[in-house]
């Protein structure tokens, strides 16, 4: 994917057209490309940016169209003082953190097993991992609720973590499998020749090589757990136990149509996700591609 103009420039040689080097673009093409990207970026960023800008306006002026108006942090201070926002934030952080940690370990080992070994049940497992993504929340949520109640995990972070793992692990394991497929088998073999157990090979040789894949997996698990709504609002009750998704719903009812505090909350919620994203984004393209190519 280098150029759009070279061949025409080259083949229309009789005309005294300017001959461009391979990979060069006409200024017009460059402008068009930049214009497309700028428009797309603005569309991508604007809704989020608008929420950020609104959160900095006084609550009463939340719906003005000015970009900046009487900039203030009162939405944030009110939010933190008047609600249990920080508690919910902490709960969400625990749930999402644990989901990420366990999710990465579990999906990496599963991905490694299906990538390297041929064992009875592998094909079935791959299908199961795909099929679990098709299960609608609506069917699962009541029975899962009952299971969690039976195990006494309702209203505890552990219950949510386990549930979120069932959402994130199937996709992550699939992605990790594709990623491990790109790491040469000779590396495993050399590890075994040197006397490492399969687990040792996996842990000491392969995992360090799979960092981009792990970064993507971590990103995906975290985002899944951080932004999930349905299970979170069904499983967690009581103001102290809520995660952000549930807490925010309380908060909408409490404040009606007041956008000010809502926007402040949204910004604060987006920050950890953005941090994880910054950490992972370097690896996102390589990690995803390897995962998706081999699927």
């Amino acid at each position, binding site marked *: 994917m280098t150029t759009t103009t070279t061949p025409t420039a080259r083949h229309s040689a009789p005309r005294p057209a300017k001959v461009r080097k391979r990979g060069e673009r006409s200024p017009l093409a460059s402008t068009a490309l930049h214009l497309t990207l700028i428009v797309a970026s603005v569309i991508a960023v604007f809704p989020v940016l608008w929420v950020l800008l609104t959160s900095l306006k006084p609550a009463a002026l939340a719906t003005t169209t000015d970009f900046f108006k009487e900039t203030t942090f009162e939405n944030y201070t009110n939010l933190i003082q008047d609600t249990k926002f920080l508690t919910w934030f902490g709960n969400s952080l625990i749930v999402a953190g644990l989901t990420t940690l366990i999710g990465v370990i579990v999906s990496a080992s*599963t991905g490694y097993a299906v990538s390297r070994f041929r064992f009875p049940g592998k094909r079935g497992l791959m299908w199961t991992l795909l099929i679990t993504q098709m299960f609608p929340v609506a069917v699962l949520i009541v029975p899962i609720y009952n299971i969690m109640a039976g195990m006494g995990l309702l209203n505890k972070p552990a219950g949510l973590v386990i549930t979120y793992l069932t959402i994130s692990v199937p996709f992550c394991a699939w992605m990790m499998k594709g990623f491990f497929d790109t790491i040469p088998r000779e590396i495993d073999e050399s590890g075994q020749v040197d006397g490492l157990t399969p687990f040792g090979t996996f842990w000491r040789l392969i995992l360090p090589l799979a960092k981009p894949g792990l970064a993507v997996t971590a990103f995906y698990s975290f985002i899944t757990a951080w932004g999930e709504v349905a299970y979170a609002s069904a499983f967690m009750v009581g103001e102290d136990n809520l995660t952000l998704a549930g807490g925010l719903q309380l908060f909408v009812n409490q404040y009606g149509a007041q956008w000010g505090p809502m926007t402040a909350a949204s910004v604060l919620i987006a920050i950890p996700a953005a941090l994880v994203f910054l950490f992972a984004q370097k690896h996102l393209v*390589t990690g995803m591609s390897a995962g998706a190519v081999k699927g």
Partner: protein
Amino acid sequence: MAVHTSQSVVKAAGDDVARGRSRGTGNPPPPGRIRRALSTHWYAWTMVAPVVVVIGVIIGYPLVRGIYLSLTDANERNVARSIGVNHLPATYKFVGLDNYTDALTGEQFLGTLGWTLVWTVSCVTITFALGMALANILNRKIAGRSAYRMALILPWAVPGFVSVFAWRFLYNNDRGLLNKVLAGGGFDGIDWLGDPTIAKISVIVVNVWLGVPFMMVALLGGLQSIPSEHYEAAEMDGATAWQRFRHVTLPGLRPVSTTVILLSTIWTFNMFPVIFLLTRGGPGEATQILVTQAYKFSFEISPRDFAQSSTWGVLILVLLLIFATIYRRVLRTQGDDW
């Protein structure tokens, strides 16, 4: 112990390809086969055990239970429940396939299914087209590429309920920015989420906005794995830009695209949060897709209708399974080993 293990691994890794499917179709198992299988495969099984256990308990049981409920007339009034200290036993009964005949012959299911299909197909098509275009542009040498990439991936990094909230804020009738801008230009405001047709377009827009980054990143990765020699060869043969796209880029992207299209079709079909948080299926039932409607049956109507909800859920699953099977069969040529 360690020595024994590593030996069996070398062996297993060595004849990895020769083994496989032919196993199990052969002669009756020799004595001790289970033990042999265990000693050959115990490490693989150990590694996948956590996933199997968690999925089995948290997905398997609810699924079986859901299928069972779909064959009964269970609702809020006749399931086992506790009122104060009294425990009432379940009184719902088995009704066979009645729920399925009702669903498949009634208008509600087929109507919702129709919109769900429109929703899925348009979302996936538009998302894929935009993702493909942006990935192709970003794959060129262009100034500020990483800045653009960051900006374009942003919708993915923001939690879903925050971005849906952001869009509701923009769409808001009296005070939303979109209508204020329209009013500023002298136009009448549009009822973005209140008019059935416009609401449908609005939810598709939001879902496309949410979905493009994933597509773009996946396709970008795919583009980077196409060897540049292919393009050089095509250029030498005088292929135009379109021909290079058509005959080098598209075939090169095939493995990635087939996977992301499959995944994104499944995800879009079951895209609960966007519809639920943006319109709750309204106005009326205009934007209700199968999943949100099934959720509504078991949580929002009174009495809660668990049986019908499960029936719809099972039907969703069956539809997706049929789709995935046909899709894989059509694309078998890739030689995937599962």
